[in-house]
């Protein structure tokens, strides 16, 4: 009786509150939409500029539509445009090895992702499913690596890669994050801990060793977290700038972010080739955006669970 009354009162209060808060709700939506606009409009402006002719941009800088519409900027970036045409449209005329940088970014991000996910899965399996003395201690020490800022290890790692003669090679770029990152081990261990013991035990009764258990049971059961980690790792690595700048600055290993970074300084004293620059950033962001649209829900749901990536 008392509970029913309480719920009734609460319901009534809630109804009253909702009515009273209607203006508040509108204000809240206004704020939310303002932030959404701040997030989205720059991307729209990026597309608008990339489809404009650089030379015509100053004539109508606030036009919402592309100024003097052309695919020229994309043609310039992708190397499909002749030098005369590029210069006429406001490009620098210097050739950009976009396809090479795109290839390099793919090699770098893919190699890091495959290595890191696989080797961290192995380690996470040992930390979550096997019993051995010192397990928690070693895991704690691994996690301790999270406390060291990347810049601090980057300098000595540069020397190590240099001494190994691996500067300006993919091996040198990939190596430091190929075998482990504390985050990846932590992330996968959390999932492996949740797997039911009975499944493993019945596999052991059937004569499956740890290796087979890992490959035939643990990995197939963890496709979802492995994919999530893989996507997050790929995106982070694709966006890397500092490390590839240090060890992969030659033409043959330069990744897109590093190539974009020099774009600005390459432009002559005059006004930069804005349309070309925006087209280049768009194409650079595209693979990540495609990944995101394909796996949006998974990525969004993983945030908060994972916490730190």
């Amino acid at each position: 009786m008392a509970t029913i009354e309480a719920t009734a009162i609460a319901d009534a209060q809630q109804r009253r509150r909702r009515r009273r808060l209607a203006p508040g709700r509108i204000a809240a939506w206004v704020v939310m939409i303002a932030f959404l606009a701040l997030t989205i409009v720059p991307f729209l402006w990026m597309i608008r500029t990339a489809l404009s002719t650089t030379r015509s941009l100053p004539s109508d800088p606030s036009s919402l539509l592309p100024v003097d519409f052309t695919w020229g900027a994309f043609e310039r970036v992708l190397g499909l445009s002749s030098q005369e045409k590029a210069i006429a449209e406001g490009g620098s005329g210097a050739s950009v090895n976009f396809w090479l940088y795109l290839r390099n970014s793919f090699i770098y991000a893919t190699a890091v992702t495959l290595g890191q996910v696989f080797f961290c899965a192995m380690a996470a399996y040992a930390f979550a499913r096997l019993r051995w003395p010192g397990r928690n201690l070693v895991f704690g020490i691994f996690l301790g690596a999270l406390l060291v800022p990347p810049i601090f290890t980057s300098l000595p790692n540069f020397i190590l890669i240099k001494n190994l003669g691996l500067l300006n090679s993919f091996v040198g770029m990939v190596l430091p994050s190929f075998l482990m990152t504390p985050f990846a081990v932590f992330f996968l261990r959390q999932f492996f801990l949740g797997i039911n013991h009975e499944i493993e035990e019945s596999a052991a009764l059937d004569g499956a060793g740890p290796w087979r258990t890992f490959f035939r049971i643990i990995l197939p059961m963890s496709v979802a977290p492995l994919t999530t980690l893989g996507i997050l790792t790929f995106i982070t690595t694709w966006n890397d700038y500092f490390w590839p700048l240090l060890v992969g600055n030659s033409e043959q290993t330069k990744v897109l972010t590093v190539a974009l970074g020099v774009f600005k300084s390459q432009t002559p004293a005059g006004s930069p080739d804005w349309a070309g620059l925006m087209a280049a950033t768009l194409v650079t962001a595209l693979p990540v955006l495609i990944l995101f649209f394909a796996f949006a829900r998974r990525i969004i749901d993983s945030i908060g669970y994972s916490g730190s990536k």
Partner: protein
Amino acid sequence: MRGPVVSTNTAAPVARGSRRSRASTSRNSGGRSELRIALFFIAPALLGFLAFYLFPTLRGFYFSMTQYNLLGTPKWIGFDNFAKLGKDTLFWNALWVTLEYVVLNIGFQTVIAILLAVLMQRLTQSTLLRGALLLPWLISNVIAALLWFWLLDYQIGLANQFLEWIGMSKIAFFADEAWAIPTMAFVNVWRHMGYTALLVFAGMQTIPKYVYEAASIDGSSEWSSFWRITLPLIRPVLAMILVITVTGSFQVFDTVAVTTRGGPVNVTRVIQYYIYQKAFGEGQFGYGSAISVVLFAILAVLAALQLRLLRAGESDLA
């Protein structure tokens, strides 16, 4: 839970058996046999940890005590680099502008993230909206920096067109000494606000509904529910977010490297950019390492302080 010690005793006869039978009862044989397997499984990660985390950490301290121009061999000079740091006005300047950047970046980012998280919780659970807010976080720092370099261009950038349109004077966002650091902070707030909001939002989902219902029955307004319930209960989450974002913010580099390169004058020569310039631009690798030791120390102290002040370990929910 079966402890490994207990199972070693009971399974001893089995462990002495054939290879096959030992494998088939590995769950019971415990200790010894699983250690060897475990070592095999963590070997690659352990190698990565030793070679690229532990070794460079120790080596970083060593390099900070040397004079090293990347060509010869490092020469041990003790604490000379640190003594020199004390008198290096550019270093103190770098520290100062970085601090200014971090305060602006984290201050705005955290407040906006909490605001967005509360709005999300009240208005909609839409995945589409969350996805849209996450977009800037997906693109690299380099792209975000270049995009805003264009949007904030003095001559024909969108922002200045807008300022003129509402009757204000133009601002040279990246070139004006007073505006350069706030602009850097803004670009990074823009890139991270949606992502941080999702982290806060996830933290808020752990607060049970009945707490709010009870408060509402007691006549608590939305405003006071936020201050009395939401904020105190997400404190542990907030502490973790702060530690991570502050640590990241101190290491700002990409945005500066592709836009102002430390200028105008020295106002955006942030600490990591200064390290980069010293170690790789001017061949003073030991000196650069010494600065990175200072940065490491600052971050360690800050992390400890934040966790302690925000009592991250304990939740008021318990």
